[in-house]
């Protein structure tokens, strides 16, 4: 879990068992140790991440849970569908977002621009560090947590991979093997001829 080493020092990875999830659940984080505004996010691996409540307010889902009527229950939020490294990244993102909110990415991203041109450097390095499936998992996590800046960031990153690419290149890029029937493809190409030729930038 090399990715977690980059987390801010405020995140303490609490006790965790490397065993099954079931046993992990039993080794609770000592939430009493943290400040009153802290909550613990528990990943599906059983790892707990202590984070300040104010930091995760950017996620509408987490905010709703934290602000919930039963305060005790909200102290520990199980995220059973996210792996530890995803939660760590999310926490990292939230904490940075608290200090330096991400600038908006215009839609559509203008041709020739990259994500880095629109957001602060920290965010562009953050998203660059996400590899492949991790990126998609972050995307899903952001969607689930209703964490719009992160969603925006990841979506733009994925989207730009398809930018300025021919359909074939897009297929290669995303390893899509779902060919059209020849006739449909022909029609499609004819209809979209304007977009496929001439190549942009030629």
């Amino acid at each position, binding site marked *: 879990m090399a*990715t977690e080493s980059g987390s801010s020092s405020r995140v303490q990875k609490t006790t965790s068992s490397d065993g099954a999830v079931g046993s992990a659940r039993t080794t609770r984080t000592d939430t009493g140790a943290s400040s009153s505004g802290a909550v613990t996010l528990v990943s*599906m*691996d059983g790892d707990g991440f202590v984070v300040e409540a104010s930091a995760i307010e950017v996620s509408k889902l987490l905010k709703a849970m934290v602000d919930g009527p039963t305060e005790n229950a909200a102290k520990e939020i199980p995220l*059973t*569908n*996210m*792996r530890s*490294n995803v939660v760590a990244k999310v926490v990292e993102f939230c904490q940075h977002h608290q200090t330096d909110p991400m600038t908006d990415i215009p*839609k*559509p*991203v203008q*041709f020739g621009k990259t994500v880095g041109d629109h957001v602060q450097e920290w965010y562009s390095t953050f998203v660059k560090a996400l*590899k*492949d*499936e*991790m990126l*998609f*998992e972050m*995307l899903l*996590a952001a*969607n*689930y947590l209703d964490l719009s800046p992160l969603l925006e960031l990841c*979506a*733009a990153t*994925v*989207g730009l*991979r*398809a*930018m*300025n*690419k*021919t*359909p*074939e290149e*897009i297929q*290669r*890029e*995303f*390893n*899509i*093997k*779902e060919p*059209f*029937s020849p*006739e*449909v493809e*022909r*029609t*499609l190409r*004819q*209809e*979209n*001829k*304007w*977009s*496929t*030729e*001439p190549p*942009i930038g*030629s």
Partner: protein
Amino acid sequence: MGTMRMDRDPLQDVCGSDNSSSAYGNKSGVDESEKMAGGCPAAAAAEAGEGDGAIGGQGRMLLALPDAMLSEILGNLDVKGLGRAGCACRGLRDTADDERLWVSLWEGPLPGGFLRGEKAAHVALWLLAKGEVEQTRVAVSEPSSPTRTASRRRVGEATATGGGRDQGHGGARGEEGPAGGGAVAVAAGFPVHISCMAINGAVIATAAGPEITVWDMEGASAPRARFKVSGHGSVTCLLLRSGTLLAGDNSGYLRSYDVSVPGGGRPLHEIRAHADRVTAIDSFTLPVGNTAAADSPVAEQPGGGSGGCYRSPAAEGEGGAWGRGGGQRGRWDQGHGWGEGWQEEESESGEGAQPLLPQRHLYGNSGASSYSPPPHASWGAAGEGAGSRQQHGIGGGTGALGESPASAADLGVEFNRLRRGSSHGGGTGEPLSRLGKRQGYAGRGQAYEPAGAAVGGGTRMQGRGRGIDRAGWAFDDGNNHGAPNAWSEEKGGEENDPFVGQRPDDGKGGAGGEQREVLLFTASDDGTAKAWDARSGRFVCLYAGHTRGVTCLQATLTESYGPVLVTGGGDSAVIVWELTTGRCLEKLETGAGLVINPGGPGPRVGCLQAYRDTIVVGEDRHVSVWSLRKGQRPRLARARFCEHQRPIRRLDMVGPWIVTCSGDYVIRLWDSRTGLCVRELETKSGAAITSFRLSGLCLLTTSLFDTSVLMTSFSQRRGSEGKGSAKICD
């Protein structure tokens, strides 16, 4: 990353299990190959092992995302990127075609929120209007035939704007200068000019005189198919949808052809749709849950139950329906003698001698034009019913719509429908039930009983209908029942063409319940528009109310009224009909205050486009934009702003832009927000432009006295000439 543990369930939880499982379900067919290829979406990774970390590992991952997120991702793309992404794979295409994405690419709010659905076209115009494109010449070519040259030399019409324009450049194709050019003709000849054309995907159909030619837009030097209309007809309008070509001719026939048959052939079906020239055809897929002609008095068709007439005096109890119908119509048609028509009709029904009077009959007295139906000798045999009807129409004297033998066609089809019903029993339950309803409106309770109604109607009408049987034979279900019906023939497997929602194998009557009903609409110079069932060719609904010929129509799904049919006519009226019932919803007073010819008729509505709640009307030389609002009078969103030199022949709306062509040489692009002309396109056709179609970045135009289609293509930058080698031929 090495310790990454992936599990299907959590991911699905994240995705929302519905979405992701269906996504997986859809794509299960490619699972194996994906795994073999090292693609490792989360779901597959559990079994297939770890991802290789390569960039190619995400394909299934990408497609497994919920649609909303895919939209989010694609929302970052620009116009071209979106277009290309749509070409990459099915999953992306569905998302990339989502109009909301395209809407977000427009700058600024759209007036009335209208946006034409043709993605490629509006993208083309988007590029065009932003000035990023340049008109270039595309390839040329086909040897010119003598006929073509000859016909080109006849150019000379419509020189209104034309001083310095290159006219009569017959045979001088190669000499066209590149400057301002962009139109290229490719043709082989017909002795007459192309009267209409239709495009579907990469297939284009054109008609000149009695001949229809179908071409592939590229790659083919010879026509894909040729058809010739029998008799003395000449084709007046075309509609091309997924392998089926519909052609209306100048004597009211509607025929369907299978364009996939190499070389052409005979029509698959033929109906006498109208009494006069068919002027426009459109198709529409009804939204789920809508059934045509379910419960409207106007839609009431000749039933033929016990009375043999569809409205007997005994029906007066239920005649409230009729009263309602009259009232509604009276709203916009006051003082046009509705009552008179009614009375007369009444008395005739009373005699019980009149079977199957079409509703249109009621309009016999409305208006003061002296329209009289053309003689149709062949319909003389239409039986006494038709004969007396005609008489009646004349008796009405000023009958704007007169009564015409087209009713005989109605009869034939109707008759046929009934007969089919009786012979197939439950097999065609849908038509029967509908019929039952209609008859129910006529106050005949027993008509609700399918068998009784059908048999009664059938036998009753056979006596009368024999002479006109011909009108409906093409759709006799006895022949094609259970067999794929070519009206609904759908080519290309997964093409989701709006024309006919059903697969051929759905053609059986029994499957009627779940099908989305596809309707065809025809407009005619006889003053009516009609709806036909695209699957069976069955007559569905009549839209009568114009006092002159209907010139254009379009069916659309509006927000305020649901599915509607919008028709425009030579009487300078635009009428919005309830699509399923034929009830008049609104009448737009388009011609008000516009005097074209003092003392003469008002401006003729030559063309219109309707999309959602916006209707763009081309009346004579002007364009006006209307927007419909529920419960209120339609609002004139933008008054006439277009100033062509000649009446507008065709218009199209592309985003906030409106494209018009008229009898002058110029195609103009208007910004409906400002009412200003954004761009003019001169096609060097040397004659009046009669029609145009947008197809991707190509603009196809036809001209008067021209036997070729001119293709203007736009490319993004200078120097990219010659990219297309499209050959469009007559």
